[in-house]
């Protein structure tokens, strides 16, 4: 079978269950969680690839991949339909002699080495499916080549007080990495790993094979492969990314990242026509905004009927919002129905949920202690009965 040689192939780790997103991922893989009105999280790494000229992406799935498979389809929405590349879903599979689920991020790549080798790539780009950011990977690759590195890790400058929540890279003056510390108590640097790696494929292959043979390894990039390369004194560099980046693995961060869309100073701007974020489209008609609606500092996607007051919120495709409703500082996911008289504040309402008449979901932080207050969440497909109160921090 003819395969075109590719300079760089991307492997996107999209297997995570995302258990900290709770009711939002009960039957959805985390990368398929809706974001920003019309997107899903996986749209970000996929669109980044396309905009970086990378047309071959392996998507490693394991947990509940059906919806994700359905969403990716033939890769058409992202233009990832190359005859000699494109988007490929790579679930675990049964081999002649043995069959196994992915045991860790490194093992997932290991099991798909033959997929990668089809394209005979020089470089391999490892991505994860749960970050919101716009990044031109081709610039990182240029840096990797210029530094003659064997592995380049994208890093972000984080405030020193937050550094102990991240995997921290300690760097030499030339940008090379001499140490990697996972969540250090006393961080020596503010350069946090974004979980984005470029490897020379030949090097990575060697380490993946060795890691696979190591019985004690947990087959993880961060825990095993990266430290192993470092220990061997491989040429590893940090590539400093300057721009918006957020791990949306928790309810709070998912909500915050949506809110960042509404803040012109956040650095998250999806409107640049030269770097579009692509998404699957659902043939919804234009949105209808009824008489007497108020919409302020909010995004409303297509296919909605809006008949209430929307402030500082994200209303996703296909929502039906009845009159007398008030939605503030909230994320309303696709195809949701908000019935008359409902009040929604500081909340995430999952896809296809229904908030029945005169219900109240969430509340302002005022009047609560820091530890008592939090985002209220209504799960995917859930119904909140009429006249019900979903309290702050509550998850149903």
């Amino acid at each position: 079978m003819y395969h075109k040689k590719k300079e760089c192939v991307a492997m996107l780790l999209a297997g995570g269950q995302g258990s900290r997103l709770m009711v939002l991922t009960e039957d959805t893989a985390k990368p398929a969680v809706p974001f920003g009105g019309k997107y899903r999280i996986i749209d970000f790494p996929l669109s980044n690839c396309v905009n970086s000229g990378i047309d071959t992406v392996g998507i490693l799935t394991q947990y509940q991949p059906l919806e994700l498979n359905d969403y990716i389809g033939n890769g058409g929405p992202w233009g990832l339909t190359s005859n000699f590349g494109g988007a490929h879903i790579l679930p675990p599979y049964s081999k002649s002699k043995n069959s196994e689920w992915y045991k860790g991020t490194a093992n997932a790549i290991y099991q798909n080495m033959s997929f990668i080798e089809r394209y005979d790539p020089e470089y391999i780009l490892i991505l994860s499916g749960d970050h919101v950011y716009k990044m031109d990977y081709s610039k990182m690759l240029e840096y990797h080549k210029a530094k003659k590195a064997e592995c380049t890790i994208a890093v972000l400058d984080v405030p020193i007080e937050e550094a102990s929540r991240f995997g921290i890279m300690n760097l030499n003056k030339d940008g090379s990495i001499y140490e990697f510390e996972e969540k250090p108590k006393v961080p020596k640097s503010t350069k946090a790993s974004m979980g984005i790696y470029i490897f020379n494929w030949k090097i990575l292959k060697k380490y993946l094979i060795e890691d696979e043979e190591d019985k004690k390894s947990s087959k993880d990039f961060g825990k095993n492969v990266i430290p192993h390369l470092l220990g061997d004194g491989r040429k590893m560099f940090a590539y400093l990314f300057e721009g918006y980046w957020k791990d949306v693995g928790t309810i709070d961060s998912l909500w915050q990242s949506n809110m960042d869309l509404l803040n012109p100073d956040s650095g998250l701007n999806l409107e640049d026509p030269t770097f579009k974020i692509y998404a699957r489209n659902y043939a919804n008609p234009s949105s209808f905004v009824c008489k007497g609606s108020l919409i302020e500092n909010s995004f409303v996607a297509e296919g909605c009927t809006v008949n209430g007051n929307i402030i500082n919120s994200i209303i996703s495709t296909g929502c039906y919002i009845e009159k007398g409703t008030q939605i503030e500082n909230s994320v309303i996911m696709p195809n949701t129905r908000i019935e008359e008289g409902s009040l929604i504040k500081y909340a995430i309402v999952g896809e296809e949920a229904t908030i029945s008449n005169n219900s109240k979901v969430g509340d302002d932080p005022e009047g609560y202690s820091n530890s008592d207050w939090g985002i209220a969440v209504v799960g995917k497909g859930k119904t909140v009965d009429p006249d019900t109160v979903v309290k702050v921090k509550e998850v149903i």
Partner: protein
Amino acid sequence: MNMAGVIFSNLFDEYFGVLTKNRTVASLPFGGRYRFIDFILSNMSNSNVTNVGIITKYNYNSLMDHLESTSEWDFNRKNGGVFILPPFSTGITTLYHGKLEALFSAIEFLEKLTQEYVVLSDSTVLCNIDYEDALDTHLKSGKDLTVITHRVPSNCSKKYALLIKADDNKNVTDLIVDYPAMEDGELAGMGMYIMERVQLITAIKDAIAKGRHHLEKDFFQKEFNEGKIGVNYYEFRGSVLCNTNISSYYDNNLRLITDEKLKRDLFDARRPIFTKIRDEVPTYYGKGAQPDNCLIADGCRIFGSLYNSVLFREVKIGSGAIVKNSIIMQGSEIGEGCVIENAILDKNVTITPGVKLTGARNAPIIIEKGEIV
């Protein structure tokens, strides 16, 4: 399905003035994110009509551009697709004398088809119709021709290309060509016809040889009157939008805002209307946005007041601007403090801050594509 489709893209261009100066009537923007052709093609796609020819003569660049990939309408198939049929004669850019002449330029397409039946459709009548059901009716009737009709709304004195008179047993008694409907609920043809393919090909060749051009008059009416063909009608019961000139085009756009039944009928979620995907962001409503009874597509940025208007994709409304009873097409930008009333702004129009434009409700002011006012 055992039926292919043929769409006339250039007929009636002359009735839409500057709006069709550089496009076919089939590519007229409609309803915030669509073009006329989207409705026709989506109906065919949803009815599993998988082979469609679009007869074009001139000005079809925008149509080709819109249909660049037909995958949006789900026509990427092995045994089918959408085929743009430019005139095989080069150089002649005059209007067709009639649909028969237009069909003659599609004869090669028609002859290559394997489907037994063909549905012909104009591009100006918008609805959400199930052609499978119409074909079933046609087959059960045993007649040569099925005219797809709807009941004329009350107070309508529009001229129709074809009116059908039928008796109480639904037998067609008379075909009337180019005549205004005289009474409520009369059966008016929607410019959509079902025929057996081989019979259609023969009729086209025969008519052209005899110098006849008018499909409804020279073929349907004539042969019906002579007893040569049997005519059946299919009564479509959903909402129908006939666009016959700029005024009805303007009204029909605004009807989408107010007419709940029309919206339900036209945008039936089980039979979606597809269009070209442009990957815009959702529409942003900033401080000062006052949308009121409007249809608003994706990718707009709104900081002004909007009343009873249709906004296409990527429209920008500056703060303090007021837009009323207007159609603002894709990419247009209305500066701060502008007042726009009863207007149609074609694509990529720029209205500089403070400008006031007011048309009449029955004669909206039209700003041509790309103009800066």
